[in-house]
């Protein structure tokens, strides 16, 4: 408890400092160090030390559409728990990740199954987000080199645009990632993922910026696959708290099965 509070304090301090120093830096060219931090921040925007949130995910595919309300807990990148609250017939379905192990709870049959990592399909819960997006442990800044491809005004807003290219042997599938970040509040506006031939594969768009859990975050994320533009997934945060009191013991099989 004590340690967490301390780091929380430190964190807030650092954040404040960062924000103030950034104001100073706004007029001066972006330092490589700071650019790295910005990109890292975007990458870890919704992953804090610990977090809890309520989200709605609306998925539209060629063959079906559905909307899920979920409650999400996370601790670092090793632990996460996702519980579905609506629709009613799926309420209680939950996924627990602890270290390398993943379990699924199915309320309809009241059973828990262990899912070996090799069986994890590409998409997360049938959406256009991948497991990589949400539970990957490695950091974008470790796998990619970046450069600032644009700095200036886009549609009346001052932004940076970064171009990320994978480091020579990084085990990542993208050939290139482009990001746009607003200067004023360091919020990302969009991320575009490309294959190696420069073809756009998918676009992630951010909106609904507001303060949640003491942080400014985009409450809404939209993913559109380039080859099927009529399909998309929208993830909306209704509640989000960071650095809550949460430890590893929370991520247990018992909690997985809890209905609440």
């Amino acid at each position: 408890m004590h340690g967490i509070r301390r780091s929380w304090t430190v964190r807030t301090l650092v954040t404040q400092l960062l924000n103030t120093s950034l104001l100073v830096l706004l007029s001066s060219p972006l330092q490589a160090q700071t650019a790295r931090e910005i990109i890292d921040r975007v990458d870890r925007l919704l992953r804090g030390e610990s977090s809890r949130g309520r989200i709605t995910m609306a998925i539209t595919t060629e063959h079906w559409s559905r909307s899920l309300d979920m409650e999400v807990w996370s601790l670092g990148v090793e632990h996460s728990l996702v519980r579905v609250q609506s629709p009613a017939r799926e309420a209680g379905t939950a996924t627990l990740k602890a270290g390398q192990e993943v379990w699924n709870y199915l309320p309809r049959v009241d059973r828990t199954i262990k899912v070996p990592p090799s069986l994890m399909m590409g998409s997360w819960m049938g959406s256009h987000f991948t497991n990589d997006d949400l539970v990957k442990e490695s950091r974008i800044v470790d796998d990619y080199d970046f450069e600032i491809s644009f700095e200036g005004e886009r549609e009346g807003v001052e932004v940076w645009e970064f171009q990320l290219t994978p480091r020579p042997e990084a085990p990542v599938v993208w050939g290139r990632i482009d990001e746009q970040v607003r200067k004023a509040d360091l919020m990302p506006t969009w991320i575009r993922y490309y294959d190696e031939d420069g073809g756009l594969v998918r676009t992630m768009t951010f909106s609904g910026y507001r303060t949640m859990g003491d942080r400014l975050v985009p409450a809404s994320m939209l993913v559109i696959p380039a080859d099927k533009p009529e399909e998309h997934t929208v993830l909306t945060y209704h509640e989000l708290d960071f650095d809550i009191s949460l430890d590893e013991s929370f991520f247990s099989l018992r909690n997985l099965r809890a209905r609440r």
Partner: protein
Amino acid sequence: MAHERLWWWRVAWRNLWRNRLRTLITASGLAFGYLGAVLVVGVSDGMLVELIENGTRLMLGEVQVHSEDYLPERNMHLTIGGYEGTDLEIFISRITSQEDVSAAAPRVYGGGLLSSGEETQAALLMGVDPDREPRVTTLLSRLVSGRTLVAGANEILVGDEMAERLGAVLGDEIVVVSPSSDGSLGNDLFTLVGILDTGIPAIDQNYALLALPDLQFLMAMGPARIHEVVITVGNAKDSPRIAGALGEFLSDSELPVQVSSWTDLRPELAEMVSLMDASHFIIVIVIFGMAAFGVANTMLIGTFERRREFAVIRALGTAPIGIGRTVVYEGVILGVISLIAGALITWPILVWWHNSPIDLTTVISGFSVAGAQWRPVLRVEYSVQAPIVAALGLFLTSILAAMYPAWKATRVPPADALAD
């Protein structure tokens, strides 16, 4: 004149009877040569059909029907007739109304997870109609323990290797999880009622069989939605033609389907069959050749040995052509008798063998070749061509082979032949 012609036949006949031993020897050569030639084609065809059927009768079927765009990705949403599906009973009876079709069965496929206790395995879920499926494939009969499925009771069958990996035994509860057609994760509890051993690792390790309606329900699909109809036909080798005909019959803009033969679906099996066919062809040629040669040789020698006889006849005043005629007629009579005899011995053997194929399972255990489970049964198939070709070939051979020396003999002046 008629009287005269008939007379030559009588001479021929009497010639044959005079040398019963020689006639018998020659005739038996012809008859058994015929038996060998027809048998070899029968056994060869038998091996081929056995290979095809073992490849198709287990699970593939000889012909399959899918929605036009279903293959090769097998997207679960692309059921026959789209989202509305099609009336199953009507569709199946339309297919079975075709003469060449022996039986048809519907199927649904899904991909998902099976979980038993601590173990989870990825599986290919196959929904089958417990009544119709056995008419088309032998899959449901490859049980090594337990029993077949009963629809509507949430029952499941898995292969022995899958059962082992799951650590599951008969009666155990298996959690089946599968993405369903509305995007949600279908899940339900099933009871393991039977374990399969097909001998094919790809099946025993990965497949799980459920009753069609149970899988449809799990995947949130109505009873009108199926992915595949498997069909068995009368003559497996004829499948491509039958598939084409069925495709035309079923073609309908409202219900775009694709009808495939096993040769399209399993080209490597088709290649193996073709290779086998080709290699047998060589043996068949060799055997036919040897049989024909044997007959020719016998006739040649026989006729050569009769030089003196011909010389005497000529000396007595018969025109050379008369000798030629005698020999030809003899050949014809001999040919006809021998081939009738040949057919008489061949036919019962073929029928008997065809109906009670020799099971070599005690000698060789079953195994799989190109994914086909081959039970070592030696059988014989009827062929329309072989008996006719063999008969004609041997018949002609015997006549031609006798004629040559007869012709030569007539060229030598009788005195010289007699002096020999």
